[in-house]
């Protein structure tokens, strides 16, 4: 449905001067809003979550909201988008697109477990929510968060020589993020951290013995673990991305 009031359009593309093959196509694009009507139910998410050790109690939830009411993230910290009750509902009925909007937020749980203590139906809310997060992560439904990317840089760094190189990790992560501090500032900070013993350049100081033999074993273990976690994923959402 096209709408006149452009400020209401999410994802509006506006260009002052845009030419395609010599033709002027400047103006507003993407002015259609998608229908809000939800047209199907798909139980593959809940089937997957239920099959995980953490997600086994998902079917019990009846949406009373006790968990969210006491949630320290939602209620005390005030992170409105973190709503465990809602995450569970979306997963239960397979509202995957709506769920994907929360792929980053879903990890904000600090595992205080008040929800698990209070749930009148015995839903292990904290575990179920983490399981939903895992689903979103494994299906690559959401773009990776900075934290995900840091985790990956960290793992790669560690695997390279069997010992963490903090200076190298900082360099590669920073470069990967497309952000760089001025070199002078970096050197000053690095020197101070080195002198106070808070920066460890592992490979220069120590080595992990036999890493050449150990490393392939670890890499294989990690990839097999990932494959195992992905194997039961619904075919509808092909796995992609991941750590």
């Amino acid at each position, binding site marked *: 449905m096209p709408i006149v009031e452009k400020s209401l359009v999410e994802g509006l593309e506006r260009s002052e001067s845009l030419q395609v093959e010599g033709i002027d196509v400047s103006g507003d694009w993407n002015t259609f809003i998608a229908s809000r*009507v*939800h*047209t*199907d*139910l798909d*139980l593959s998410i809940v089937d997957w979550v239920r099959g995980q050790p953490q997600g086994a109690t998902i079917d019990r939830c009846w949406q009373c909201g006790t968990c969210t009411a006491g949630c320290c993230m939602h209620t005390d910290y005030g992170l409105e988008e973190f709503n465990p009750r809602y995450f569970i*509902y979306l997963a239960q*009925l397979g509202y995957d697109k709506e769920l994907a909007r929360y792929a980053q937020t879903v990890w904000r749980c600090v595992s205080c477990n008040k929800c698990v203590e209070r749930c009148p139906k015995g839903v292990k809310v904290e575990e179920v929510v983490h399981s939903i997060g895992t689903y979103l992560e494994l299906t690559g439904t959401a773009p990776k968060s900075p934290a995900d990317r840091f985790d990956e840089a960290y793992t790669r760094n560690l695997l390279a020589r069997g010992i963490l190189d903090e200076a190298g990790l900082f360099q590669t992560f920073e470069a990967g993020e497309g952000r760089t501090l001025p070199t002078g500032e970096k050197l000053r900070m690095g020197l101070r951290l080195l002198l106070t013993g808070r920066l460890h350049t592992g490979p220069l100081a120590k080595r992990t013995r036999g890493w050449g033999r150990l490393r392939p074993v670890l890499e294989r273990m990690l990839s097999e673990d990932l494959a195992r976690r992905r194997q039961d994923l619904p075919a509808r959402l092909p796995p992609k991305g991941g750590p």
Partner: protein
Amino acid sequence: MNPVLVLGGGPAGLSAAAELASLGAPVLLVEKEEYWGGNPRRWHYSLLAPDLLPAEEVLNPLVSRVEGAPLIERHLRTTVSRVEPLSSGFRVELKGPETSGWREVSSVVLATGFDHFDSRRKYEYGYGRYPDVIDFKEFEGMIHDDRLTRPSDGALPKRIAWLLCVGSRDVQVGNPWCCRMGCAVSIKQAVEVRQKHPEIDTYVYYMDIRTYGLWEDLYWKSMNEYGVKFIRGRIGQITQAEGGKRLLATGEDTILSRPTEVPFDMIVLASGMEPGTGTKEAAQLFGLPVGPEGFLTPKLSDLNPVESGHPGIFLAGAATGPKAIPDAVTEGMGAALRAYKHARG
């Protein structure tokens, strides 16, 4: 002693008749249909909520108690056409194939029951037009005989929805009351479907779930053990989709705050409970008051739910409002005791 007239051969009437006979009172048991057991028998109820006991295991012992009691004179396909009061008791005119004419009775138990709401009156659900929109009273028989296939094409449905409160809690059809049974029976049906065919997905569209008291266990079980799904919202209309191959339920998922148009292979309507035609007739015949809902009203619904307030007339079962079978059976016993006391004078 003149016999006690028990009008209605459903669970409440059968229970009252059997109880009166066990007290040594003669009974005249009259039923307008050609079978004993009332609505549960008429629609071939499958398992009964909440304990999932086969309906036959509840009805058959009741019927055989009645049939085995020499003190009970039984008449099927028989109605009472006129009533005259006597100084003690009544004169009633029976009309039926076996017996016709006036009889004197010492007291009366009205166990005239309910009718299921006619789902065609909710035209927007397409019942009567779309073969795969099914009333849950008919679905009972389908589960009972294990024929879950779609009437339209004989295929096994992959996805079934139940819609609660059809003809209940709805001023548009003049029925603002709750039928008490619809939630439990629909959930029970979904459980039965999942027991027999775990590959069928089952959804219940609800506004509130009223599996009251200990029946709550059934509701929990349906989620925890059978994976029945619950969507909060009332379907607004049902149309056909995919060239008539499927049904499209238009509603709002009120938790999501979004409109939904979801295809189903079969949609089951939980039709409500209305005062039965027998109950309406009995109210006229005996000059008894009815409530705004059209059910007979006990004089003291709290203290004495089985007494009409009219001397010698007692009430039992769904004649006074939607009721589960155990409640109807209990009231049959209570009404029997009061009718017996009245008959003894």
